């Protein structure tokens, strides 16, 4: 990464932290473990930890646990080479022990790539369910453990109805467990159940965050989500193709906001609690595509209704984040326009820079 890119990352983190760095003081001089540490979430947590260490003297020792360390070294060499960041190569499913001095854990292991869920359902389930079980087992024997934050998904609620403006932490509908498409959501629900069991039986101080949708550097462009498709199509010169009229509503929280939110919830969230994490500000896919097109190098065309469909297939997936906002004083600090601009630039620069 260039100096400018490194500065941009730091500025993003500074913007997300704002005046509230003292809220994270309990993390000073602490040992923080992140499982799934080399994915999107892990990478942003690493950026945030680096920022807190460099600009606020936090002296966090960050340990990233992932099955492969080599990807991280090539994707984020400026982080992998830091002395305050350690990489442990391990499959979370067979995890027996974690570093003894660990004080805080964020359990982010598990791929949200739904292509993987469909092609490798057994491994998906195992990684999430068995992985959570192994991690909590290891955590239960840590002397200096303060809290474990497990990352769940907003999909656990079941499909959001179009009439519901946003989904709050108590808005559960039933999921058909025999429906193969629900495998990821069911795995995440089972993982949350395991956290309840460990909390109850062994007193492990664990809480859950339910993640919605995010945007930012470090997100792979080939991920099959609408926003990644738009970005990829835009960077290729377009056109950006939308199914239907693009009225489906989503929201996107920027990576540095995500990192600050997660660390805040880790520190101030209630043990046994569950917190929605995401942006409450919905945007239609059509408007999203328009914003992305405006920022893309060659201002691509947008095509709606490219194929005729019998039904209107618009969906809404929006978190009600008032719980996190009130209890942990959190807010969206990186506006969507800026988030999109940063992401488009980051990808565009990478396309221009040979690896």
């Amino acid at each position, binding site marked *: 990464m260039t100096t400018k890119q490194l500065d941009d990352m730091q500025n993003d983190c500074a913007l997300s932290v704002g005046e509230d760095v003292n809220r994270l003081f309990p993390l000073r001089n602490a040992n923080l473990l992140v499982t799934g540490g080399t994915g999107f979430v892990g990478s942003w947590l690493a950026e945030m930890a680096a920022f807190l260490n460099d600009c606020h003297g936090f002296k966090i020792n960050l340990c990233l646990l992932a099955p492969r360390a080599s990807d991280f070294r090539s994707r984020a060499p400026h982080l992998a080479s830091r002395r305050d960041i350690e990489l442990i190569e391990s499959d979370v499913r*067979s995890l027996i022990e974690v570093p003894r001095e660990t004080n805080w854990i964020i359990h982010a292991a598990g791929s949200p790539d739904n292509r993987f869920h469909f092609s490798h359902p057994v491994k998906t389930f195992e990684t999430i369910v068995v992985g959570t079980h192994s991690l909590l087992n290891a955590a239960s024997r840590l002397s200096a453990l303060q809290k474990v934050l497990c990352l769940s998904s907003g999909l656990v609620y079941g499909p959001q109805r179009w009439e519901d403006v946003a989904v709050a932490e108590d808005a559960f509908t039933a999921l058909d467990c025999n429906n193969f498409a629900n495998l990821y959501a069911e795995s995440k629900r089972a993982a949350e159940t395991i956290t309840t069991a460990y909390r109850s039986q062994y007193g492990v101080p664990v809480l859950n965050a339910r993640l919605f949708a995010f945007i930012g550097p470090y997100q792979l462009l080939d991920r099959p989500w609408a926003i990644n498709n738009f970005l990829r199509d835009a960077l290729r010169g377009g056109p950006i193709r939308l199914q239907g009229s693009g009225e489906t509503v989503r929201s996107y929280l920027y990576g540095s906001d995500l990192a600050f939110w997660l660390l805040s919830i880790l520190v101030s969230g209630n043990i046994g609690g569950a917190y929605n994490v995401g942006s409450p500000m919905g945007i239609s896919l059509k408007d999203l595509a328009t914003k992305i097109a405006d920022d893309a190098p060659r201002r691509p065309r947008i095509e709606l209704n490219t194929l005729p469909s019998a039904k209107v297939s618009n969906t809404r997936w929006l978190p009600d984040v008032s719980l996190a906002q009130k209890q942990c004083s959190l807010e969206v600090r990186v506006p969507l326009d800026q988030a999109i601009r940063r992401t488009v630039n980051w990808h565009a620069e990478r396309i221009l820079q040979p690896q």
Partner: protein
Amino acid sequence: MTRRKMVPVAILGSGNIGTDLLLKIQRSPWLECKLFVGRNLSSPGLAKASSLGVPISSNSIDGILQDASDCEIVFDATSARDHLRHWPLLQKAGKRVIDLTPAKVGKMCIPAVNLEECLAEQNVNMVTCGGQASVPLIHLIGKTQKDLEYVEIVSSISSRSAGPATRINIDEYIATTESAISLFSGAPRAKVILILNPASPCIDMQTTIFAKVPDPRIEPLALAMEKMVATIRSYVPGYEIILGPIVENGRLVVMVRVQGMGDYLPKYAGNLDIINCAAIAYAEACAMKSVDVASAQEVTRA
């Protein structure tokens, strides 16, 4: 005559392929598995190995380099990506490596055809299932038929024998197998087709070989094939020609079926079994050669 000593080997990769290899090695009078290595202690393969009294490790390549220093042969049944990492380390450690992944950095080995040449190599790969099933016969077509223009194979395997790794790598399977059949037949053009069939009960692996030859000579081919099949069956007992060689619609046709031995993998997974059987055949040949060399040395020393 000195008592035959078994050659120590290690298996890297505790999935279904590695575990099946282990069971075959347990039966081998030439090979002894000194270490069975995975990277995940909860893998059923490691549990199986442990129950058989075979030393296990979950330290992947480090396990081999540290604990299996006396192993002469290492079977790598991990993944292409991992093999690329393992090979330089094993090469430096002087190990002979049998690559069962799609990495294919070493020499292609089809025991019934080029076993001898491969004995001098430090890294060999077992090509693909279609390659193992068809190359010996295609090689004979190349030898007995004049002006072989084109060769094509179609393999049908049961859906249940094709896991996610196979399914995501079909293009690579086609490219590798095409280069193998070109190489071993001398045909200027080659094509490979792969079909997955979900029928239940599961079908055995079936491969049809087609060849374009202006003036097909069936008799010498049939004779040579009969001998070749006997050779192949010595290490792949479930291999048989079910039809041919015949000429149908201007093309030379031979149909082969491979049923697996059912050691750890199910019997219908003949496609997976044939690769393991070939790997064992090669390893045993290496073992026989090194034991002969050792015996010869002892004799001269005595």
